[in-house]
């Protein structure tokens, strides 16, 4: 809860404002919307994951790989990434417009999230020329799927307390230890790994940050069952795993700074992601549409004043969250807390989503007690599952409580706890 108290100052993020033409954006989004209407895939026979954390079967994996590749090949993924590595070099607002339209049309997610939103931006920011050339384009095409190795059993949000070690051994790093909550761990080609170096330095001062090929000998992957009952992430064990020296990114023993920078992408604070359509939220219109089909105490759910009111509150909150994206582009309107909007992105959307999903269950009345694959469940129980899955985002990548600490200290300047 006070992890932030030891953050180096340079990880403080200032809002990026770029005044780009609203009309160009709308036009671009319209063009993409048209492409989507023709090219978005139909609903497959199997259930699709709502977030990248829920990819549990081969058919889901293949379907989402194909879909991401086709979006990329049509020119709509990584549009704000540099052209020389496979992007289109457009302002980040264009990527945001694409994400919003994907959410709006409720198309399948861009599932290679760790690559698109964590590893990719990181490599572009501080990677070597070799690393950029080798990895970036393949992230967009989904040829390389990435996973993340930060959390460990027993460490939770306390990243400085990790015990996996990566020490020099000739021209290699030798890795021992284990990681947990590794989304896509059983499918990934690469992992971003945080581990203790051999400095003997305590906690956050002695970490290394590595890009690790998952096919390396000595890596074992075990699937974890989620509370939804489905699979979706893994535990990864390292037993004398050797990887080449140049898998390091950032300075040796500078892994903590690299990790903190990486978390700012995830928090939505830094921009630079190739896509944020990773399914951590849905658009309220989808939920309202479902609600029109729901019965509460034998009548339409949307005729119950208390349900309507809770929904109206969520709609106001959603509207504010969407307006933020436009307001933050006007630097004059960004003060007096210019980093607030970006730094709170994850907290706002993930908590909103949790409450929306919970209401979506409650408004089903008696049928809200049903679950996945019951034939009478509204939308096959997707809202029940959606509520359970919502915790992945309120917990993962720094739980909401830590997000609040960070906002208090870095945006409001409140003293460390």
């Amino acid at each position: 809860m006070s992890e932030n108290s030891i953050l180096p100052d340079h990880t403080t993020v200032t809002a990026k404002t770029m005044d780009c033409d609203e009309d160009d954006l709308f036009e671009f989004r319209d063009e993409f919307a048209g492409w989507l209407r023709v090219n978005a895939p139909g609903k497959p026979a199997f259930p699709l994951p709502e977030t990248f954390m829920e990819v549990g079967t081969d058919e889901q994996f293949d379907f989402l790989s194909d879909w991401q590749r086709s979006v990329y090949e049509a020119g709509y993924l990584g549009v704000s990434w540099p052209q020389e590595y496979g992007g289109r070099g457009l302002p980040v607002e264009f990527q945001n417009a694409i994400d919003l339209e994907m959410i709006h049309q409720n198309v399948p997610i861009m599932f290679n999230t760790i690559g698109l939103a964590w590893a990719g931006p990181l490599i572009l920011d501080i990677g070597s020329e070799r690393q950029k050339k080798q990895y970036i384009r393949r992230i967009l095409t989904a040829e390389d799927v990435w996973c993340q190795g930060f959390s460990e059993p027993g460490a939770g949000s306390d990243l400085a307390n990790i015990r996996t070690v990566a020490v020099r051994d000739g021209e290699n790093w030798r890795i021992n230890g284990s990681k947990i909550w590794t989304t896509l761990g059983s499918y990934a080609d690469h992992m971003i790994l945080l581990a203790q170096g051999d400095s003997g330095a305590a906690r956050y001062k002695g970490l290394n940050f590595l890009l690790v090929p998952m096919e390396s000998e000595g890596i074992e992957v075990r699937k974890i069952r989620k509370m939804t009952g489905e699979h979706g992430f893994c535990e990864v064990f390292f037993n004398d795993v050797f990887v080449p020296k140049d898998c390091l990114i950032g300075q040796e023993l500078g892994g903590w700074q690299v990790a903190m920078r990486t978390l700012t992408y995830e928090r939505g604070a830094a921009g630079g992601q190739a896509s944020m359509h990773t399914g951590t939220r849905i658009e309220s219109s989808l939920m309202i549409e479902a609600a029109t089909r729901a019965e509460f105490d034998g009548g339409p759910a949307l005729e119950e004043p208390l349900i309507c009111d809770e929904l109206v509150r969520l709609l106001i909150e959603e509207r504010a969250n969407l307006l933020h994206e436009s307001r933050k582009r006007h630097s004059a309107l960004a003060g007096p807390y210019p980093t607030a909007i970006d730094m709170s992105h994850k907290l706002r959307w993930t908590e909103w989503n949790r409450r929306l999903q919970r209401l979506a269950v409650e408004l089903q009345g008696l049928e809200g007690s049903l679950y996945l694959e019951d034939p009478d469940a509204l939308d096959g129980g997707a809202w029940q599952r959606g509520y359970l899955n919502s915790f992945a985002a309120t917990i993962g990548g720094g739980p909401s409580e830590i997000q609040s600490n960070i906002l208090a200290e870095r945006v409001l300047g409140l003293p460390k706890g």
Partner: protein
Amino acid sequence: MSDDRATAITFSDEQRLLLEQSERFARNRSGFESVRKRIAAKDDIDRSIWQDIVAMGWANLLVPVAYGGSGLRVDALVPIVESAGRHLLASPLISTALATQLLVDAGSRGQKEMWLPQVGSGSVATTALCEPGGSWALTEPRLQAQCSNGIVRLSGTKIHVRDAKEAQFLIVSAMLDGQPALVVVERAYLRENSLRSQIVLDETQRCYTVSFEEVEVPATMVLDGGDVVEALCALERTGELLFSAEMAGGLGGALALLVNHLTTREAFGGPIGRFQALKHATVDILLDFEAARSLVYGAGTTIASSPGKAASEIATRMAKAHTSDAFVHACDRTIQFHGGLGFTYECNAQLFLRRAMWSQAVFGSAKYHRQKLAPLLLS
């Protein structure tokens, strides 16, 4: 609060003994491992647990002495159900109790003689009252019953029938000659394949949709010893009370799990329970839990001393409104504060959350009851 008695709780020595006994029983017989075994089990009920429940006399607490039972009032069940809820103990006790109450309230002497003693000897019974559309008010069933030549023919489907597969008889609400009626359907009268297992959030539950299409029973199985609408209203109250009691127990179980986690899980150099944000949120849950218990035992007192229909309705609806929201909220926070672990199937927090979500949906959610309470309290 003009009625002072509405804020008094009576709690007899008998209830105290039942509380101690049931807490011990549930703790011993329903550890988390047992709960998970129950979930994975093929059988709908754990026979050994049910036999013990019957042996302890809990199954026929509500059966009048004249029919071989203990003749206690429904508040005697509250401590038992609370203990069961705390330990997620699964049994057909509530199903059987609700069926018993309908028989007592609406059955003739002959009908009581026929079915009540079965309960004491270990038969499972249940009620089939809810229908597609999910109305929580039970007094206007749409399932049709037609009587001719001493035969009643049913037509329609009931949903959310708990423990239907194991029940020796089901009490079904129906419209007969434009009036609500209650019909006892023994399991032999059900047609083949009339039961479909529902997939519900709480994996310890066994719920069914039951088709009564073309089911025919003798007209003597229509309960004719009391006012059916009154009996159904009373059943709503009892259902609200018992599920509130079970939820109050579950809320206590979730709180204990959370407190244990906060005091043992270490991060950033000490147990995470030292962080104020977690502390204060947990205190809110504690206060919700205390309120749940007071409302539940208060409602038990009110319903048992029968100080008028409105007072009971207020008391049980308040209990169900409060516990439904509070239990879900407590589990939601318990998951969140467990961090990554909370998100796994392995963590026991999900057992409580699924129970909470299931429970809020039966016998009316918080919003439903608050809406019903407004005119009762404010006009």
